[in-house]
């Protein structure tokens, strides 16, 4: 079994697709010799290396490349149904072409989210992870190669909806945004502390629904701060528009920081 993508056969693998483009499946030359162990003396070989060294090395290369080209990549993570895609549609529509914005969509199956993004006019690449539950640095590397974002652009990476697995995998992104919506339990930050601990920003989405749901905002914010004391927090509604000015300001500040590091000056 291949666990990069969780696939068990020839037909199930990570697929990277430029929507309105064509499909590339990754090569799968899994040939292993099968030798039966023999009972001889053993010797110990010290390795002393990080398990995720390969992922982290690739992520570091991606981060360097993005910074060199003044590209800001935002890794959006949440449970399924928190409103990631709706937030992206609204954000791209609000930017109205003032900023080149591109999207990498991560889902186990379907191009549905990518098609929603495509209808906003943004260039979008869909990564289907098959049985895989998260994006990793290699998938983002391939996605970016397909997306080919121009210098100075803003790239959103919508991770697979999952509050557990994506937390551990550095993609080489510029920043991590975790979204929790008020239709979920307010105790999610305590249940999934690894995810919230990695966040640079937490968006509390769907605040327009607060009058209709039993969601303890104060408890949620307290739990988030317990897990990550210095994290930034913004309440938003991607449908009604609450808090989106602050979200755009946060994005602009992030982009300005990237541009400063790279020495990039926008044309005109």
């Amino acid at each position, binding site marked *: 079994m291949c666990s990069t993508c*969780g696939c068990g056969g020839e037909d199930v693998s990570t697929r990277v697709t430029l929507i309105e483009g064509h499909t590339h499946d990754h090569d799968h030359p899994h040939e292993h010799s099968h030798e039966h162990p023999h009972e001889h003396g053993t010797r110990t070989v010290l*390795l002393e290396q990080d398990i*995720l060294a390969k992922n982290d090395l690739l992520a570091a290369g991606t981060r360097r490349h993005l910074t060199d080209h003044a590209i800001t990549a935002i890794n959006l993570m949440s449970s399924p149904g928190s409103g990631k895609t709706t937030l992206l549609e609204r954000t791209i529509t609000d930017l109205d072409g003032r900023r080149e914005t591109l999207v990498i969509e991560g889902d186990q199956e379907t191009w549905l989210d990518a098609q929603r993004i495509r209808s906003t006019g943004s260039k979008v690449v869909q990564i289907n992870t098959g049985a895989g539950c998260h994006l990793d640095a290699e998938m983002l590397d391939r996605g970016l190669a397909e997306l080919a974002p121009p210098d100075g652009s803003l790239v959103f990476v919508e991770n697979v909806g999952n509050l557990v697995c994506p937390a551990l995998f550095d993609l080489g992104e510029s920043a991590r945004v975790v979204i929790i919506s008020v239709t979920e339990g307010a105790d999610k930050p305590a249940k999934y502390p690894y995810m919230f601990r990695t966040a640079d920003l937490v968006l509390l989405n769907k605040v327009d629904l607060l009058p209709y749901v039993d969601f303890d905002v104060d408890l949620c914010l307290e739990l988030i701060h317990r897990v990550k004391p210095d994290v930034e927090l913004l309440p938003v509604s991607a449908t009604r528009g609450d808090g989106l000015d602050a979200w755009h300001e946060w994005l602009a500040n992030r982009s300005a920081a990237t541009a400063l590091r790279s020495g990039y000056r926008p044309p005109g």
Partner: protein
Amino acid sequence: MHELAITESIVDAIVEKIGDGPVAAVRLEIGRLSGVVTDSIRFCFEIVAGGTGLEGARLDIDEPSGRAYCRNCRLEFTLDDPIMLCDCGSADLDVLAGRELRIISVEVR
């Protein structure tokens, strides 16, 4: 189930380093604050190692406890709970240990 991907990283890294020859045992260090479940690693290892030199290898996993320094009360203490709080109530901590995810060594035949 990120343990599946983690386990393949382990097997790939070892095969890359020492080749596909037979391995009798693998020693890992998986800290208690790493977010990785060692039982799942053991389960996945049997599947992922199948057909490689690591097939049937013994898996020894050290699970170091978490240690943190509280910036508020300036004390160092042990913690294994992923909600990291000092007894003083502060979450303003430096994690010193417990997040390890390392391949320590392999015993080759």
